[in-house]
């Protein structure tokens, strides 16, 4: 424990700015993965255990697109769009067969695909780790805000993730499609009876969730090493986020992800040996005090 370092940091604006942005970055990437997970659970009522694979695909697609075209924007687009397509196919061909089946069955199908997707990546891109490299436009000196260090790339990353959160939140709350999705989550039978194609909605939501995870992977690709199986640790943290925020809640995913990010960034100062532990400890506290998560609906 190193509480002096922590209090020292809280007293200095430079440290505060640096650690807060560092927490935001970790949190925002986590949010993009977790929000897809929570969205899919909210509407389809399945826990998509293979969600980490979409994050992995996003990163690999982005790297390949970047190597082929040299365009960062196109790389991000390919990462997100390519993963959406995989999500759609995966849902229509496989997941749609296990709706309503035993949870264990769904889990097994997802887990099988965790292994299959990892091996597919290994076959296409090889087993060794890869690096996409930072685009030249972002290879600049970091900004200094109130003495704190903020890399420009991370500003972009936070901006994109926030925009995604905003569009998603408003889209679900204000648009007609959003209403239909919420209705389908609440009572799929009724929605179907009203002549709306629920299969299409399910496929769309799954693709959307996959796309967000793919976008997270694409955004992370320039700064994280790419390896088959890279989705797994992200998936575990995303589960913690959804458990803290409440399964099915988008706001919950956002708050949960930011909390985890900040716990990591400030925890590593104050509790360097217990940073991981802090995260789980926080989850336990939430589970004990509010079993359905901070923003989850109370179980009737």
């Amino acid at each position: 424990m190193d509480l002096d370092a922590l209090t020292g940091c809280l007293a200095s604006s430079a440290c505060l700015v640096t650690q807060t942005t560092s927490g935001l970055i970790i949190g925002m990437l986590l949010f993009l993965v977790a929000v897809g997970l929570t969205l899919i659970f909210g509407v389809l009522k399945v826990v998509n255990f293979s969600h980490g694979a979409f994050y992995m695909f996003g990163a690999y697609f982005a790297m390949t697109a970047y190597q082929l075209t040299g365009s960062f924007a196109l790389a991000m687009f390919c990462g997100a769009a390519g993963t959406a397509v995989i999500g759609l196919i995966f849902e229509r061909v496989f997941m749609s067969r296990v709706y309503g089946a035993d949870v264990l069955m769904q889990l097994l199908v997802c887990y099988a695909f965790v292994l299959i997707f990892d091996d597919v990546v290994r076959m296409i891109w090889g087993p060794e780790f890869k690096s996409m490299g930072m685009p030249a436009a972002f290879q600049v000196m970091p900004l200094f805000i109130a003495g704190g260090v903020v890399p420009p790339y991370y500003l972009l990353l936070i901006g994109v993730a926030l925009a995604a959160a905003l569009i998603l939140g408003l889209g679900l709350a204000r648009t007609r499609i959003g209403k239909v999705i919420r209705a389908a989550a609440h009572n799929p039978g009724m929605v179907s009876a009203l002549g709306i194609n629920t299969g299409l909605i399910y496929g769309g939501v799954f693709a959307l969730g996959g796309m967000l995870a793919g976008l997270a992977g694409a955004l992370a690709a320039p700064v994280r090493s790419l390896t088959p199986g890279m989705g797994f640790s992200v998936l575990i943290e995303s589960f913690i986020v959804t458990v803290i925020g409440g399964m099915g809640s988008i706001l919950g995913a956002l708050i949960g992800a930011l909390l985890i990010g900040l716990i990591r960034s400030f925890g590593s100062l104050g509790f360097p040996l217990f940073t991981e532990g802090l995260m789980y400890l926080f989850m336990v506290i939430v589970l004990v005090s509010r079993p359905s998560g901070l923003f989850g609906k109370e179980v009737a």
Partner: protein
Amino acid sequence: MKRTRTPGISRRSTLALMGAGAATLAAPWVARAQAKTIKVGMPTILSGRVAQLGTSSRNAVMLEVEKVNAAGGLAGRQIEMVIRDSKGQPQEAARVARELVNTDGCELLIDAEASSGAFAVHEVARDLGVFCIHTNSETSSLTADPKQHIPNAFRTARQGVHDSIVGGSYAAAIAKAKGLKKWATCSPDYAYGRDTTAEYVTYLKRFAPDVEIISESWPKLFQPDYTEVVTKILQAKPQALYSCLWGGDLTSYIDQANIYALFGQMEVFAVNMADYTALTVVKNLPKGIHSGNRYIKTYPATPENAAWGDAYKAKYGEYPTNWSWENATAIMLIAEASKKANSADGKKIAEAMKGLKIKSPFGADGTVTMRGEDHTLIGYAIGWGTTIPQEPYVPQVQAGDWKTILELEAEWKKSKGYA
């Protein structure tokens, strides 16, 4: 094919066919058997995150075995390698090793496991009395601790304590010259990371007593994001940073530290940087990271070493790794010891290998020696230098001095109660 609707028979034959197929697939990867061959078993890691290293071990072994076989084999017997995947799990490594000896009839073992598995295989070698050569475990106690010592086991891997002595004295010289007093460390949180960092710091402080460690970070092995660690180090404002992160973890760390311009603010010492697996992957390698040599074809700067690195690349399409040279050395030593003993018998090879000095492309002076007293390799090329982003990656390596290494190693052994 006849189209008859007799499900019973067709199912049975299908099953038989599947069974046969499964049996074929399950059969281990065996080089073509020949008369009078000697089987050499090799458990290594061929799947999972470090599969690349295991594969590079296998490649190096096969490259050398071909040469030995072309020259007549071991005392006239052709070598037949039986290589199996341990998946990096100690219990699996031990099981595979036992099976290789008991079921497959392997007479010699090459243990190409990481430290976790090597200790397990070591116990199998102790139990079965089979000749065994550890090629990848760098944990010093494997050979330094007299409790581990058995007459039939050897090690061709570099040793952690050698690396720390050379790395510590190299860093201390720079620390003194540039006045680097405040240091930070950042290493993976498991046995290798903790032990290596502690040994390194010990020798750094010994050679430069006014060095002070002001910040320590222990990220988890295979952690995807190091941002909080990077910013923590920036806050501490050290003058120098030591890290023994490796592979994909190291490249992630570099990418993430790069955008915080960390490398411009302190001297960085990363022992595992100068390995082709990391060097060729990092896109924006900062100039001037200090690193220990792992395998690099330009050090030792001899035609033999360059030729070996190029031959490997020509055959496998990529450069060798640290594990490659360590495994190639094992085959070279076995071949030489067998020649000396004029036998392929494990006991006789072990006897001949004690204190054996052979010519080697990886030797600091063109030779390496299997030290008789504790069965570990000495005299291999060891040094530190700074990296540049293109070939030859480490243009100048400052060689470690083996006389000093051996003196300090003896002292270290005493302090541990090993000698």
